[in-house]
């Protein structure tokens, strides 16, 4: 089965057609455009697709009105979500032995976030997952997925947002530093629906997440926020694809990353396609990286394919830099020691985006996690030597 939206005439090498068929996604050699940044060896054999019946440990807090159920893979596919865009996502569906469906019925407005904490036991634990989130027409929901502990984990997450619905979806990759997390989060946004996603990747030896968005009618709005913080040796890769396949849709992507320590590597790919039918759309994507020490590498590749000029606006920005000396000087000139000034600047860099999440307890938890990362940077050589 091939997703109609993603195969609709875009012959982009960046987006091999979506399909549930594993054979449709050959094992990559590492030279392919979509794989060239990923250290395949560190995927711990995920690409071979060994079956495994292991699961993460699920802890679900769900307010009234949410229905969570186990469904068969066939039934999950029948729900019509975006199909897997790569081999790991296709394997996730094929090997997960069924899916978990999280459903919020039409018109239901949840009064509290759905919080799902998923915990892995050991890095050797191989887990395939398939999750389908369906938000009914005009429903309103906040869903938070928190990943902790360690595992070798790959998941297909399909998110179908009904017409006029509002969804906030946060995914927090707070793994231990030896976890591997890959897969695909595919969003389909209904007519006039509003979706805000938030992704935070702080832990993990290797995180490689593909996030795709397509629209199911005009007027849908997407705000896609993300942060990542890579320490020595960590590979954190986020590949975003927004397909403006319907008129008057909007997307706003803002991802921010920090890197510290030898071998810290982040990859951010931001692709936006504006189809011929997508008149009157507006899109902006931004990626900013703060390089805190020497020995890090931040790849940032925004890309815009425009097939119609009849739009409100389309733009992107990508910056990768070290500390702003003026900001540090200003803070220091008020007596704040340079290490603390740096910490304050990084804190601010992320707080700026975390604040937009709008879920206070998660905001607090995330900023605490950022602080933890910053504590580790003490003693590392600064990337910006004042006076140099």
């Amino acid at each position, binding site marked *: 089965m091939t997703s109609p939206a993603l195969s609709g005439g875009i012959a982009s090498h960046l987006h091999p057609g979506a399909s549930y068929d594993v054979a449709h996604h050959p094992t990559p050699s590492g030279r392919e455009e979509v794989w060239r940044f990923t250290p395949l060896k560190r995927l711990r054999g995920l690409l071979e697709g060994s079956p495994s019946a292991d699961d993460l440990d699920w802890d679900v807090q769900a307010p009234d009105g949410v229905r969570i159920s186990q469904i068969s893979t066939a039934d999950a596919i029948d729900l019509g979500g975006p199909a897997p865009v790569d081999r790991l996502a296709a394997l996730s569906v094929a090997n997960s032995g069924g899916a978990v469906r999280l459903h919020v019925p039409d018109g239901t407005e949840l009064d509290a976030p759905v919080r799902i904490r998923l915990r892995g036991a050991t890095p050797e634990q191989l887990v395939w997952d398939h999750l389908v989130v369906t938000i009914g027409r005009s429903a309103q929901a906040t869903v938070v997925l928190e990943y902790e502990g360690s595992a070798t984990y790959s998941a297909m997450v399909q998110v179908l947002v009904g017409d006029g619905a509002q969804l906030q979806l946060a995914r927090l990759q707070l793994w231990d530093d030896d976890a591997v997390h890959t897969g695909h989060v595919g969003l389909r946004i209904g007519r006039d629906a509003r979706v805000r996603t938030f992704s935070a990747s702080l832990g993990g030896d290797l995180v490689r997440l593909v996030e795709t968005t397509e629209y199911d009618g005009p007027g849908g709005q997407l705000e896609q926020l993300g942060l990542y913080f890579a320490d020595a040796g960590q590979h954190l890769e986020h590949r975003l694809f927004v397909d403006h396949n319907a008129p008057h849709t909007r997307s706003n992507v803002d991802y921010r990353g920090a890197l510290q320590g030898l071998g810290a590597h982040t990859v951010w790919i931001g692709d936006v396609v504006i189809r011929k039918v997508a008149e009157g759309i507006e899109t902006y994507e931004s990626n900013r990286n703060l390089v805190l020490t020497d020995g890090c590498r931040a790849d940032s590749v925004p890309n815009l394919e425009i097939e119609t000029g009849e739009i409100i606006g389309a733009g992107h920005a990508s910056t990768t830099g070290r500390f702003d000396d003026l900001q540090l000087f200003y803070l*220091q*000139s008020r007596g704040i020691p*340079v290490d603390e000034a740096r910490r*304050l600047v990084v804190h601010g860099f992320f707080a700026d985006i975390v604040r937009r999440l709008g879920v206070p307890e998660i905001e607090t938890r995330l900023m605490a996690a950022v602080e933890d990362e910053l504590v580790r940077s003490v003693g590392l050589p600064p990337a910006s030597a004042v006076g140099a």
Partner: protein
Amino acid sequence: MATLDIRDLHVSVQTEDGAKEILRGVDLTVRSGETHAIMGPNGSGKSTLAYSVAGHPKYQVTSGSVTLDGVDVLDMTVDERARAGLFLAMQYPVEVPGVSVSNFLRTAKTAIDGEAPKLRTWIKDVNTALDKMSMDRDFAQRNVNEGFSGGEKKRNEIMQLELLNPRFAILDETDSGLDIDALRVVSEGVNRFSAQGDRGVLLITHYTRILRYITPDYVHVFVAGRIAEQGGAELAERLEAEGYDRYVRAGSGAVAVGEPASS
């Protein structure tokens, strides 16, 4: 009784064509209790002087000294200078995204005092400081200088001056871009600071209008990287009437003669 002493200060900036000397031997002594005004044409080096004393990394001191009660200031890091009692209200205050004014102030106050301010009194102190500057209390929750109007940025600087209460304050064109009410509010803040009796002020300005609110004990005319003349408050009036023309001509004459860079 404290003294900020600037002796024969020479400062260069790095340009594409090598080092360029901006300050060419500045001598200035500010004692606590005194207010000094510095006036001078655009590009004469007033901000360079302010930044150099504060320790901005862009400015390289090639010779001369700056001491605070005999202690070498140039040897200190930027934050050490602030903790030693120096404060610079900047001509162009810097935006710090994501850092709230309240968090910034508390961090600064903690650094300067060496201990965290008491939570109960602190919130009150911040609110009082905002009130005094006629700033809405919401400013405490906004990001430092982000989206502030020009005038709001300047008020924010003087608000910090009052909260951090240093020994010496250098105010770099704090009066520029202020409306009449803001000028009064800001001047009152500076006057409250001075009224403690043992604080020194170095006020860089282009306009005599602020000197109607803040009476300087000394006025210095700054031209081509050094002080060309000094006098009392009446000198400011004369500058207002006559401009800098004769100093500039005299100054450029001196440079043309090829006076050595360091005396």
